[in-house]
């Protein structure tokens, strides 16, 4: 499955490094990545492929959420279909 990871919060050093580390450890491939300031927030959006993930989805989400907490940002992982279905006909 392909999913979107969003990181929202204050910009600081090491966010991308930390998130991509967790993904590499879990055998999750990053397909695309973009970073921008939206509505005054630092926003990083990643498209990832979870095909070969070596843990459960729940474990990966938990790791991301925990690292988000330590970085002071909010991290979410959602199947890409939710965005496609809401905005595309």
């Amino acid at each position: 499955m392909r999913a979107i990871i969003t990181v929202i919060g204050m910009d600081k050093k090491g966010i991308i490094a930390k998130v991509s580390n967790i993904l590499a450890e879990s055998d999750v491939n990053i397909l695309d990545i973009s970073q921008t300031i939206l509505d005054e927030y630092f926003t990083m959006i990643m498209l990832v492929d979870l095909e070969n993930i070596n843990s459960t989805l729940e474990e990966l989400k938990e790791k991301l959420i925990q690292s988000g907490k330590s970085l002071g940002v909010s991290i979410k992982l959602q199947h890409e279909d939710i965005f496609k279905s809401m905005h595309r006909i």
Partner: protein
Amino acid sequence: MINPYEIMETIRMLEEEKLDIRTITMGISLRDCADSDGDKARKNIYDKICKYAGQLVKVAEEIELKYDIPIINKRISLTPMAMVAEASDDDNFVKFAETMDRAAESVGVDFIGGFSALVHKGYTSGDRRLIKSLPEALATTKRVCSSVNVATTKAGINMDAVADMGRIIKKIAEYTADNDGIGCSKLVVFANVPEDNPFMAGAFHGIGEGECVINVGISGPGAVKSALKRVKGRPFDEVAESIKKTAFKITRMGQLVAKEASEMLGVSFGIIDLSLAPTPAVGDSVARILEEMGLERCGTHGTTAALALLNDAVKKGGVMASSHVGGLSGAFIPVSEDAGMIEAVEKGALSLEKLEAMTCVCSVGLDMIAVPGKTSAETISAIIADEMAIGMINNKTTAVRIIPAPGKDLGEEVVFGGLFGRAPIMKVNPFSSTEFIARGGRIPAPLNSLRN
């Protein structure tokens, strides 16, 4: 990649505007569970519910994890129990309600609907036994919800049933007097009841439905209110457009979840119910949407027009987003479950009469209304009769869920907590309707042409 603005919009709707899937409701037919031996019938019912719904909560949780969408309630609706239990020799159907309660507990759902009867034209023996059992059934069970359909546009209004329901509601309130008459919040009296509604307390699995279906109720008053904030002061054309677009997006999310749930459970997809269902939480109020349109308080002059626009625009936006739309689909206006409604009643802006007018243009009716405990059974019946007449004449669903709060009067409130919220006691007309209700019989079905 998907446009970042679209991604952020979805996240904002979920995080800040409290968008959620309000309920995944599994409808299960119990038509093959009837037996002349009540114990056997109840075993059949219990086993069937556990067989079909055993994975419901687990599947809902997996979908929540996958999409990060909160799915607030997982529920079950059943074939109207009066039809299933009728074959048994039992004089009282309380044990059937207890079986429903046990099955709901065992599969982990918070409510189970379908302790119901359809009596718009008359009673069968099962209907009579079920209605007689209601006070005890709703007092002794926690999860069981009940509904009684007493009117349709095609059959007219069964005024004997209306009279009975007034007395039964009073009795349910007495049986649950320790808790402000909470039993009444689990009973809905309907006109033109939909057979695929996923929302409680009025959900049941209609007789035209298949063996087992998944119906999904969406919500999102907060998202609609935020969308309206962005068109402040603009003409109504833009208001309607803005509601339609939001309803479309919300419904698409519901459709995705419904499709996924039905595939994972191996059960067919029934309908999406496009309702704006408020909760007592701040930011989850239908009243606030109406106020956002420019009304100082919900209930003031203009409220009916605002609600008419809202209700219609929600349907227009949602219909294209889903392959099958059904249920109640529209805006709900329960008083106790909507912080803005509660405040409007407390400030004297919203009266029972205005609520009745509002029900002419929205999807349900007088919902979660608390009235003084001393209100007579006949007055409650008359309130029901008025509401049923609105549904019958206008070819729409209307409903009454009313709580005559034992020992309480104007200036006090009932507090149920959780999703049921709290409700200030509302004033009822003090003049009697006793002789009117005492007549009984049926109000004939209305003419559907020469409409003026």
